[in-house]
Each structure stands twice: as C-alpha cells, then as structure tokens.
C-alpha cells in the first residue's frame, strides 16, 4: 500500500474511561497507573513518617503524661484521618496525589460523597497498615506458629495486590467507596491549523484542490495529518516531504512550481481544504471515516 499515510492513528487507550456528568454529557478521564499511585502513596507515607518523627520529638522535649496523651491522639488521627481529611479538603487529593497530579473521583459520575472518602480510607487499615505492621512484626508476635504467619501474610498480600487483578485498578477501598483514581486532565489548546493558513484555499493562493481530489481521504487520514503537522520531532520535515509526495500521487495533484514547492505549506493547505470539505459533509450527516469508506 504505497499510498497509505505513514503514521498510524493512536490505538484506543486501555486506561480511558467515560464519566457521565449530571448534565448527561460524557467526558473522558484516564485511570491512574499502579506506578503513579505508588508514587503518590510514597509521598504520603513520607509525610506521615516525618509527622511521626516530629510528634515523637515534641513529646520527648515536652515530656509528661499530657504530652503522651496528646501525641497518642495526634498519631491516631494522622494514621486514620490523614488521607480522609486531605481528600475531603482538597476534593479527592492528598499531598501525594497533588504532587503526582492524581485525583479520586466518583465512578458513577456526580459528586464525590464525604462518606465515600471515609469508606475508601478506612479500608487502608487492612490494605496498608496491616501489611506494614506485619512486615515489621517480630516472629514472637505470632505466638501461634509459623503456619499462621504464612497464612496472614498471604492473605494480607492478596488484599494489598488487589489493584493488579482488576481492569480498573481498584483497591478494596475503591470498591467499597465506588471510586476511581484518575490522572488529572491537562487541557492544552494549540493554535488551529486551519486558521494558520487563513482558511481554505482561494484563487489567489497557490494550492487549490478540486472536489474530486478532496473526496479521496477521510476523517482518519485527516487526523493523522493533523498529528504530523503538530509533531515537532527531529526528522519531521523528511516525514512531511514523504507524506506530501504520497498525497500528490494519490490525488493526482499538479504541482504548479516544483522549485518553490514547500511540503509543509502544501500539507497545511491540504489539511485546511480537506477539513472544510469533511466538516461540510458532517453538517449534512455524512461522515467519511477513512479512505476506504465510500
């Protein structure tokens, strides 16, 4: 297939999920990967450890029973409500999630309920703190024997590894609360390619295309072309020359002046003309998916 464009359109992202807003419009979000979530957790645990050390130091300096009472309560609150309070205050984000640009959202759309935040973080008791205390427990803690220790370890490890075993990377807390952890969407609006060339070609401009020439390609090729025009990698001009040659051959375009021919300008003009043509078709209810779509 010599006339195929050289770039493949992106495969659908397996981490992409749909959320329906209360207004009934679907928006897309991207699930956080296990690695991203571990990164966020590492930051949060580091914060907890620092807070723990500070508390212990304060008690040692302050001394007294009241100091111990105070420290005990603060440590309890840190352990049990650090995640909950931050996620409530910062709309589904802890310090770690904020640093790694993650966010907890309601899987079914709609607001993230405070009870959901509480539920998902209460589960950390078995998912996070149980494995940690098991890991640092001395063998004496398992007075009943080695078998119990192995059983407890396997069971706790299975719970902690739950996100590896389901498509949506849900940990037990997410299941119990009906939540997802997603990557914070980052909107970036680039200049409109069709406006860069001043809209569709006119008689005064060098590149004019006939309706037959514009009927060759479809939406898929148009968007591949958009990607090529927005690309900034090193050998992009070579790729553009190559693609321009393929298009010229495929649509039977006469290059008016070979010496002043500029592949990028040609592709921009072709993109604008093509998009105008396809969008007009769209307005009349015809969507030409790709070049094979008649």
């Amino acid at each position, binding site marked *: 297939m010599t006339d195929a464009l050289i770039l493949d359109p992106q495969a659908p992202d397996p981490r992409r999920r749909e959320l329906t807003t209360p207004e009934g419009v679907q928006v897309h979000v991207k699930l956080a990967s296990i690695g991203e979530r571990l990164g966020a957790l590492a930051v949060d645990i580091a914060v907890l450890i620092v807070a723990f050390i500070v508390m212990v130091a304060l008690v040692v300096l302050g001394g007294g029973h009241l100091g111990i009472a105070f420290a005990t309560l603060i440590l309890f609150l840190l352990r049990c409500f650090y995640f909950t309070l931050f996620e409530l205050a910062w709309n589904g984000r802890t310090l770690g999630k904020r640093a790694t640009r993650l966010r907890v959202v309601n899987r079914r759309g709609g607001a993230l309920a405070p009870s959901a935040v509480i539920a998902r973080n209460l589960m950390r008791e078995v998912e996070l703190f149980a494995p940690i205390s098991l890991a640092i427990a001395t063998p004496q803690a398992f007075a009943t024997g080695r078998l119990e220790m192995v059983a407890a370890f396997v069971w706790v490890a299975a719970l902690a590894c739950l996100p590896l075993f389901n498509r949506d990377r849900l940990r037990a807390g997410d299941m119990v609360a009906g939540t997802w952890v997603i990557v914070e969407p980052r909107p970036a609006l*680039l200049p409109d390619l069709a406006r860069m060339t001043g809209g569709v070609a006119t008689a005064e401009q060098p590149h004019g295309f006939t309706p037959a020439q514009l009927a060759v390609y479809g939406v898929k090729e148009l968007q591949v072309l958009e990607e090529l025009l927005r690309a900034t990698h090193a050998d992009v001009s070579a790729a553009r020359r190559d693609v321009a040659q393929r298009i010229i051959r495929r649509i039977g375009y006469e290059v008016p002046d070979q010496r002043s021919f500029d592949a990028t300008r040609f592709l921009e003009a072709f993109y604008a003309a093509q998009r105008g043509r396809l969008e007009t078709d769209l307005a009349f209810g015809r969507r030409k998916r790709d070049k094979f779509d008649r």
Partner: protein
Amino acid sequence: MALELRSAQFRREREAAWRELEELIDRVDKGGIGSLDGRALARLPVLYRATLSGLSVARATSLDRNLLAYLEALCARAYLCVYGVREDPGGLFAHFFARQLPQAVRASWKQIAIVSLVVFGGALAAYLLTMADPAYYHAFVPPGLQQGRSPGASSEALRATLQGGGGGDALAAFAARLFSHNAQIGMLSFALGFVVGAPTIVLMLHNGTMLGAFVALFDSHGLLVEAGGWLSIHGPTEFAALILSAAAGLRLAGAVIFAGREPRLVRLAREGRAAALVMMGAIVLFLLAGILEGFGRQLIVDTASRYVVGWGVFAALLAYILTAGRQRPR
C-alpha cells in the same frame, strides 16, 4: 478574503469563555473554592455548562482533534471542580450527627442483631464454661491481658484491681491510649468485613468470650456486683462501639456475598458508604468510651455511681439513635 471554516469560527467565538473557565479552575485548584469572589463563583457553573454544550457541538461538527481533546480535558476538569466535595465542614458535621448517623445505624439493625448475638452468645458460653471449670479462663483471656486477674488470685487481690487510682495527667495518657487502641480494633473489624466477614465474626466472638470469662472469674470470687460496676462505667459504650464497627463490617460482607440483582461492585459501593457512616459513629463512641474508662473508672469508685453513670450514658445513646433524624410525620 478567505472563507473561514465553521469549526474555526466556532472556536474563535468561544475561546475566550474557555480560557476564562480554565483560569477559574486553576484558581480553585490552587486556593480552594474560597479563593473565588462572588462574581467568579457565579460565573463558574455558567461557563461550565456552556463549555459542556460546546463539547457536544464540537463532537458533532469539528474534526480538529486537538480542539476535541482540549475540550474533553477542560470539561472533565471543570466537572471535577463543580461537582467536588463542596459542603462547608460545619454543615457537614451537623448533618452527620442530626440525620445521617442515626439513620445509618437504624438501617443496620440486622447486622447489629447478628453481631450482638455473637458477642453475648460467646460471653454466655464462656461464662458458663469458666464457672464450670476455672481452667477455661486461660483459654479465653490471653495471658498478656490478665494483669494479675487469674483464677488463682485471692478475692482481695481481685477486688483491688477494681479500685480507682492514679490521677490527672496520667489518666489523660491512659484514656488516649485506650481510645486509639480500641478504635483501631474497631476499624480492623470494619475493614475485615470486606473479606466476607469471617474474621470480623471471629474477632467479636473473641471479645465476647473474654467478657464472659472475666465476669465468671469475679463471680466465682463473690465479686459480681463490683465487677459489674467496674464494667458498667465504660463497657456499654465500648461494646456498643465494637458492635457498631463489626456491624458496619458485616454490611460490606453482605454486599460481597449477596449482590442481588445489582452488579456486585455497585452494591458494594452503596453499602460501603453507609457502613462508613456507621463506622464514624463507632469511632466517636470509642472516644467516649476511652474518656469514660480513662477518667470515669478511676475517679468514680463508688459501685452504685458507676452503674448509674455507665448505663445513663448508654440510655442517652440509645435514645439518640432511636429518635434522631426521623422524618417528621406529614
């Protein structure tokens, strides 16, 4: 002049609003919703709905992939911002205690009944067994928790363990430690509900048998009334908290086992949120029990007063759970 594409025109007309929305969301993300003044606060939902409808239009008419991706991300961000956790903490707090908590506890009556049966059935069994043969005491109460309370001890020594003692600051430390220890056990029994509830039941049975064996020990030494007073000051509250956390755990277990017609994950999420509310109530009770145990038990040494205070608190609790947050008759 060149003709402008319809989609380019669409973008030119709306881009300013998109940028404004983006800037508002940036401010909310950095400084919270409080960083918006009244005018901006009113603009936010307007811009959000306009952008959402813009996304629908763009999906139907525009072939500019970058524009579509931008609107997707902007709408998702705006949606998360507009529909975030937004209640003010004070209102949230009041609503929780006035309505949500008592309602959630009442809705869990089945689980509460099951757990109570396990705890008090276990207590009764352990009581009867220990009365029949004191050697069972060691099977029910781990050596680490006995603290000199064992069948071999004299009645006088046992009576001494029921007295108050200590004062002021030491009690605060004691109460805080009791609270955080007990609350952690409670949260564990909640979270264990996720693994179909069996460990929760075992944990409850263990607590029940400890109670039964403890009562039997003192009864066999003729100290039943005094031991009752010692337990009464914090026992009803603490066991209520324990039973609530286990009942919350059983709601999770029930959702995992009996999904019914709903998808299992949907039911689990719904039950999980209700159970979390019950669990929050249990933590508040653990705090109360910790205060009663840490201060009350040491400072109130008269047995009769112990009964009155302990069960008085429990009665107030019961009245609150049964009456608060009911729908008014129409």
